[in-house]
């Protein structure tokens, strides 16, 4: 009982967190190399030496920070990513947290991420970090709405809010084909919520690092780890909701999930490096005037398809 419901699920989540974040760092290094950026060392070793460097550094202090908020924000973001990963089904029976409302829980993870990212920027009590926090809050709602609409779309054919049922409903046709707008929109949300590439407005270069401009040492390591872990969780949910999860011929289900997650992460790592960072004003317009209406169309499409 304890082994099945506590130890194995925890081990599964921790292994996915550690392995997923490391592989994402490697994929990002490979993407950087493919764009012609020289690397100081092997892409396999670089994430480890960077982690060791941050662990050897002092965690600094700013003037009169909100101590609880500042120290807790990275850990809370990591916790949210872990909750998201716990929802990913690796096979019909191998799910860390198999609940009937797993998509609702994922929605709350996205919403709470806004609070945690704001906390990270606000509690340092410095100007550039605060601007990063403001920016995320200004944009976060549009990300969440798009995500919710496309995820409601995948629950319609499944007639369930459970991710295991969503996978089972893709037995004949994966949602990436059934609802072609869903996955691209969801991937954009993934880049936005983890503020990467063109949507990196919270931790951007124009803010010298934004919400993490004042953070160093182990605290920065946890923050960077959590951002990557959230993207890994995103890839897990994308795999489940749109790419048929464990479904696939020849290979065991968990291996299919892993391969699909890696493919999604590789696409996100490459997209993150391809585009220039969008300005906040253009981002707002893009989200509310283009992507949100597209997510409505996706939902209507899914509804009509479910009725037929």
């Amino acid at each position, binding site marked *: 009982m304890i082994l099945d419901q506590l130890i194995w699920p925890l081990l599964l989540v921790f292994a996915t967190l550690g392995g997923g974040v490391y592989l994402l760092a490697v994929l990002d290094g490979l993407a950087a190399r493919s764009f012609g950026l020289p690397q100081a060392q092997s892409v396999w070793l670089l994430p480890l030496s960077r982690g060791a460097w941050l662990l050897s550094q002092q965690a600094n202090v700013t003037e009169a920070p909100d101590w609880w908020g500042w120290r807790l924000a990275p850990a809370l973001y990591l916790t949210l990513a872990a909750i998201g990963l716990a929802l990913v089904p690796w096979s019909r029976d191998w799910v860390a947290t198999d609940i009937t409302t797993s998509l609702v829980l994922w929605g709350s993870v996205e919403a709470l991420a806004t609070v945690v990212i704001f906390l990270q920027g606000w509690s340092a009590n410095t100007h550039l970090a605060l601007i990063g926090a403001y920016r995320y809050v200004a944009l976060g709602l549009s990300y969440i709405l798009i995500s919710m609409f496309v995820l409601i779309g995948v629950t319609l054919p499944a007639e369930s809010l459970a991710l295991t049922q969503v996978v089972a409903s893709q037995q004949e046709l994966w949602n990436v084909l059934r609802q072609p707008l869903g996955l691209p929109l969801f991937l954009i949300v993934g880049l936005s919520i983890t503020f990467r590439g063109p949507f990196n407005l919270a931790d951007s270069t124009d803010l010298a*690092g934004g919400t993490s401009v004042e953070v160093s040492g182990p605290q920065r390591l946890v923050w960077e780890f959590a951002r990557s872990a959230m993207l890994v969780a995103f890839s897990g949910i994308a795999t489940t909701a749109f790419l048929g999860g464990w479904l696939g011929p020849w290979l065991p289900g968990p291996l299919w999930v892993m391969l699909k997650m890696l493919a999604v992460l590789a696409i996100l790592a490459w997209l993150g490096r391809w585009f220039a960072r969008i300005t906040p004003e253009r981002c707002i317009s893009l989200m509310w005037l283009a992507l949100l209406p597209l997510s409505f169309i996706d939902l209507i499409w899914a509804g009509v398809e479910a009725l037929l």
Partner: protein
Amino acid sequence: MAVSWLSRLAARGPATVFPALGMQGEEAFYQLALHPEIELVDSPRHASLLLVAGGVPPELHEPLRRVHDQLPAPFTTLWYQSEPLLELQQAGVVRVDSLEALPDALVDAHRKVLRGELGVSPRLLVDEPPNPWRGLGDDGHGGEGMMGGVPYGRPMAMPPTQDLRDGLALDTLTFRLGPFFPLWPAGLEAEVILQGDIVQQFSVQSRPFPRAMSPVFFDAWEHAMSIARLERARVQYHLRALFHALHLAGLPDLAWRALRLAEACDRQTITALEKGFKDFERCLKRRGFFALHLPTCGTLNTEHAEALGGFAARAAGIEGDARRDDEGYRRLGFSAISQQAGDTQSRWRQRLAEVAQSLTLAARAQQNDAVTATTGVVETPRGVWRDERPGDASALLEKLLPGLEWGEALATIASLDVAGVSQWARP
């Protein structure tokens, strides 16, 4: 044992360097930005090494101390062509005067400081708020009631003032940045008042350091000079400026490519440079540098455009260019390029068009060994140099930036050259 293993692993990574640029420190910056084992970072909190490159005037020693003390331990400092602060001279800091030796010295210092083989730089300031607590009230809000007050010397977020953009009034936030803020010209210090992320006020507190030009522009002012060399130096200048804009845009690989092209200007054939630049320009467009990142604001009015001169004026429709009056350039078929909008985006379009034009001119000039015909006047990349070199124009930022979002303001600063031209040529 475990710590030693961790330190050794940490030491294998790239050297993370925060560059505090003094006068004539840019040359070192550009060399280091191309080095694969060195990572230049934008926040002192993200570095293990503080590099002070170039001379720092005594009045900026206090801000330098503040930057120094922000680096997390273990860290050390390196001084390139700069005199270490008095209190650090006894701490055995590394001083390097050779540009060739600098990258290796940084990598070596990074490894040694992480392995504990090099003394850690001592803290220079007392670890306490720079201003005393002067607030009132149980909650430490810092003033009388909920209004005003200066907790730790900083004004509190004040009640809303009129918003400059959309009428949504937010609390204002006042802070100072510079003179070692790496995302704008070295030496520039400003007091900024933001409302949300909109710049309400931008007050220049200290001007950027004068920028050193290539010696060919000094030579051209004094005597006839090869047009091919002049144009190659102009291309290099603009591509180096583009490095900063692309870094701001979150395109590190294109920034690196721009700088590599810039550094190849002296030695590569014009044909190779033209081909490389065409590919590069296509990439800029495809990857959203203009469509996603560059704002269509920061427009210079005629008065400011004329005061600034050079490419910035031409981007605003003012066709002044001293090369039109030079017989050597006329023989090569030179005619000035211009844009109309005068905003941030058109300044970059202008600069890129001028780079392409300079490469064409250099190719023609090389065939004919063309030289300049006029002395006592030269069109530098920063503007025309007749009796006086182009001077500092940072004051115009105070008029230009209010109303812009923070990212737009920084992109606008990167699109301009507000620093004056130094009396000393680049080494």
